[in-house]
């Protein structure tokens, strides 16, 4: 583990105190906005739960310091009342995700390593101006053992693959429903930087609907290249799942010698029994709405 790195599972669960030392609640979650702004991704807001009182969603600006077992705010009980929310879902901005709910313990695609993994922890580093900068997602089983209190066994040094394994935040695609949709809508997300080969590897690891959404988010030329780079069965599955006009646009963007065989293939009746040979491991589609504007 890097020195000075903070962990999501270590930060959340701490008591949140006012400047007078009074406990205001417990830190339940942190949010980030996957916006298109340049620069590092930083924690945007804190979700603080309280007994028998509405949840608070506070901007990071009210944090005075993050101690070893508590988070101290610059505002007291009276001021935080203005940050109460009735519904957490409605309080989130359209590009905002919750790190515990939408990232921790969910599956991600490491677009560089071209693999599927489950997030064991989220790593931050404290910046000079007191903010928390997002570094990446820890995916090794060693982190799971650490969370279970078994980290001291030192199995990571003995068993290969149990050591630290971190995927940079810029190199992952979230598969939680909200994470996937928000990343699709965010031009700086990894999914928008991938070349044809990388895109083919990503769409081969997500479900058909998610794959077609990813292709639809790129221009037809790049989508056509990705279809050609993927396994033919994956390409066929995606093109068949798209509206005819979209599929036709992607095929038309191919060079003539490639477009013609694809048109011929798509004109044939789908092979029912061959449908499953594609290398798509996960996530048939879940349609959740990204709820309303920020309060």
């Amino acid at each position, binding site marked *: 583990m890097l020195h000075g790195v903070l962990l999501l599972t270590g930060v959340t669960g701490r008591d949140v105190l006012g400047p007078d030392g009074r406990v205001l609640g417990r830190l339940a979650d942190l949010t980030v906005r996957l916006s298109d702004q340049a620069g590092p991704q930083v924690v945007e807001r804190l979700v603080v739960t309280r007994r028998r009182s509405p949840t608070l969603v506070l901007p990071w600006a009210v944090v005075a310091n993050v101690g070893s077992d508590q988070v101290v705010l610059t505002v007291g009980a009276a001021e935080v009342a203005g940050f109460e929310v009735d519904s957490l879902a409605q309080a989130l901005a359209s590009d905002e995700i919750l790190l515990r*709910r939408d990232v921790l*313990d*969910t*599956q991600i695609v490491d677009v560089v390593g071209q*693999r*599927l*993994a*489950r*997030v*064991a922890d989220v790593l931050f580093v404290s910046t000079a101006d007191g903010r928390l900068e997002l570094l990446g997602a820890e*995916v090794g*089983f060693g982190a*799971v053992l650490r*969370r*279970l209190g078994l980290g001291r066994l030192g199995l990571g040094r003995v068993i290969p693959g149990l050591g630290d394994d971190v995927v940079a935040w810029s190199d992952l695609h979230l*598969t939680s*429903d*909200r994470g996937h949709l928000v990343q699709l809508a965010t031009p700086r997300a990894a999914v928008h930087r991938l070349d044809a080969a990388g895109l083919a590897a990503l769409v081969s690891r997500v*479900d*058909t*609907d998610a794959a077609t959404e990813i292709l639809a988010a790129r221009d037809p030329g790049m989508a056509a290249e990705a279809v050609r780079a993927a396994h033919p069965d994956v390409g066929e599955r995606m093109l068949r799942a798209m509206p005819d006009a979209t599929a036709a646009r992607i095929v038309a963007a191919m060079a003539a010698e490639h477009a013609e065989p694809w048109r011929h293939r798509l004109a044939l009746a789908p092979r*029912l*029994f061959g*449908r*499953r*040979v*594609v*290398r*798509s*491991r*996960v*996530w*048939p*589609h*879940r*349609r*959740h709405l990204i709820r309303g504007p920020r309060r």
Partner: protein
Amino acid sequence: MILQKRRARFAALLVVVGPGLLAGLSDDDPAGITTYSVLGADHGYQLLWVLLLSTVALVIFHGLAARMGVVTGQGLIGLVRQRYGVGVGGAVLAALVVANIGTTCAEFAGIAAGFELFGISRYISVPAAAVIVSLLVLRGSFHRVERLLLLLSTVFLAYIASGFMAGPDWGAALHGTFVPTMPMTGEAIAIVTATLGTTLAPWGLSFMQSYAVDKKLRIEDLKLERVDVITGAVLTGVIGFFVVVACAATLHRDGLHITDAADAARALEPLAGKAAGTLFAIGLIGAAFLAASILPLSTAYSVCEYAGVEAAIDDPYTEARTFYMTYGIVTLIGATIVLAPDVPLVTILVGTQVLNAVLLVPLLLAMVGLGRDRDLMGSFATGRAGTLVYGSTTLVVVVCVITLGVTTVLT
């Protein structure tokens, strides 16, 4: 035109069929057949209604497992980790792995007992079975594995034939199925709980969900998947029904008691003819083979789901080491325990049944909670009416487990 549509629909059904049938039928494993045999031999047709209840519970929870797998694209243990954290997920996984290894022992013990009825030593049958089931999954593609397992499950027809040959009293059988009566003895409570517990097994639930994910079923497949689930559950109930009927018509009539399914096969021969006993033994071997293939598979899926590594039957060994290693280790331990001379096999099997029954309660509660979670299930989340149905079924299981615990302590 109508014929073409029907053909297309039937073809689509054939594509989807698999998870429900395999998860359901593998519940009729040697432990299940033993329980049904004892139910029929000791109580005749009277407790057949328990099978109807179990089948309904199976439809309800296997349907939920399939829906959760299809909608979230994740297996049960992965979802438990995602929603309840690594602690709860780890505890459930640990209990599931221990229970699954114990149940795998039961399957290999069934293979040993079945072959010994034909004079083949367990030192030949068990290692051979372990190698065959390992090769089946290691070397086969998903489609080949699925088709072979489905083909293997046709051996259950032997029980139906065996039931007919026993010449049962169909009127009494129907009465016992639809009119519930209950002798209030500890023994009867134990067998009712065991029947419910052996039909609705934790490993069956986790297998159902993981397999639906590995099969890459999609939301548009859900309607046909329901047909698969219902067919699998009903067939499971029907096979159980015929096992009970065969034993009720012969062993119960003559006042004979048995302790396991192999006993039942032996006892059936003089009462219902050699063919009935042989068919019963063949059914036992086939059931044990099917479950011995599926138990390690279910465990491997669950371990990989929790650890967050890729797991699919189509993946080569180099890309899914944890998956194949888990499969191999569970198979090896299960087979070795059955062959080891001084291992207390009966204690292990009884302990496994208890662990399975106890584990079922938190697993069902977790499923009800996950099914209601709108963040995970979106518009497919369980509503109030559904929660009532799932909750009531869980309550019945909880009451049965508690009653079994109390009666066990008292006796």
